[in-house]
């Protein structure tokens, strides 16, 4: 456990020292959402209608982009092969890095979301469910994305390739995330959607670190 937390602490420290790394995902999130009123036009009812969808899509893209470097810098400077040779399971290393990643990007995203909901004119009833759904959904995005980040290591392609691999897998989270918010706005119950998001998370929690570790071992051959 000591080893696990020392990796989490290191990654947090790296994120904080490297200027505004953690802020950057949020800023991308904000800018991507703000592009829509500019592209689509300012009519409030249209914006309100598409608000939940746009916020979730932007969250997907922001997670995806920030995941790109999850293992890459460690791979390039030889840290990753050394981590593999340390006396703790590679799955734990992956879990530690995903934890740090979520703390530095997922969490700020959740904090910023209500603000963007206001910008997009979203109905007030959706706010709390939006935040809840993001709390359940973003860790799944980080976990699934970690698999993609491990698979592309060494290809030298980065974001482009990652998006192709990972975005289709994000679709269920997107759909249930949006539908929870839409249901809340229309006054329907949201329990089912939130439960499904939670179930995704529970399934991803053991499966994804295991798959990522397998992919990392491949990459270091």
């Amino acid at each position, binding site marked *: 456990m000591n080893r696990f937390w*020392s990796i989490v602490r290191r990654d947090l420290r790296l994120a904080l020292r*490297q200027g505004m790394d953690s802020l950057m995902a949020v800023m991308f999130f904000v800018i991507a959402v703000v592009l829509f009123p500019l592209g689509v036009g300012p009519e409030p009812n249209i914006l309100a209608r598409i608000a939940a969808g746009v916020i979730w899509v932007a969250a997907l893209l922001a997670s995806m982009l920030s995941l790109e470097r999850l293992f890459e810098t460690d791979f390039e*400077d030889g840290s990753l092969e050394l981590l593999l040779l*340390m*006396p703790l399971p590679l799955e734990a290393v992956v879990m530690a890095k995903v934890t740090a990643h979520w703390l530095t990007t997922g969490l700020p995203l959740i904090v910023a979301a209500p603000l963007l909901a206001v910008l997009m004119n979203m109905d007030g009833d959706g706010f709390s469910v939006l935040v809840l759904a993001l709390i359940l959904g973003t860790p799944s995005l980080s976990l699934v994305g970690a698999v993609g980040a491990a698979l592309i290591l060494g290809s030298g392609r980065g974001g482009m390739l990652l998006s192709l691999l990972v975005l289709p897998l994000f679709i269920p989270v997107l759909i249930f995330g949006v539908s929870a918010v839409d249901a809340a706005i229309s006054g329907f119950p949201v329990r089912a959607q939130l439960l499904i998001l939670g179930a995704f998370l529970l399934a991803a929690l053991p499966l994804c670190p295991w798959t990522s570790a397998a992919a990392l071992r491949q990459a270091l051959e």
Partner: protein
Amino acid sequence: MALFSGDDLLCIRGERVVFAALHFAVDAGGALLLTGANGSGKSSLLRLMAGLLAPANGRIAWDGEDTGEDPERHKARMHYVGHLDPIKPVLTVAENLRFWAVLKTGNGAAAGGALEAFGIAHLAGVPGRYLSAGQKRRLNLARLETSPAALWLLDEPTAGLDAEAVAGLRNAIARQRSVGGMVVLSTHAEMALDGAEVLDLGDFSAATQMTPAAEETP
């Protein structure tokens, strides 16, 4: 019987046989020097020994037991220094070293003395990005001194080091061997280590040997 040994090893990289039918054996307190022309497979052999690569054939054993069987134990008794220096530019020298020490041993107490041994104690508070090529190498080597390990695997450890640092490394290797540790290292420079065995990778290159495995890989 030798403590650390490899039997009939075959290494295939990039769909090509790098070396075949290679044997090696190192005893407690022993040293093995890997030599050979560029591309002869020194780095590849060290990665096999570390468990980063799996041999296409043959086995690597510790005390008679296959190292692949209990990789966690093999990891715990080994220090590996590769071509790359795993140093984060935004962490200070001391923080960089401490991180690896904690991961290896569970606590990072010994980090200070290790910097001393490689002449970079005065850089302890300097961020990694300000280091020159040789200073990075020294910091990477300092990991060796943070915790005892029975086996050191060093890939061209002297690359980029000045004479003083090479002397420091030679001392460290002598200390390691005097307490019964083993050292395997690759080098192009002449490195006089008393009683070290030399393994020339050129002797095992596939040029001289045609194995069936090479023909069958699709």
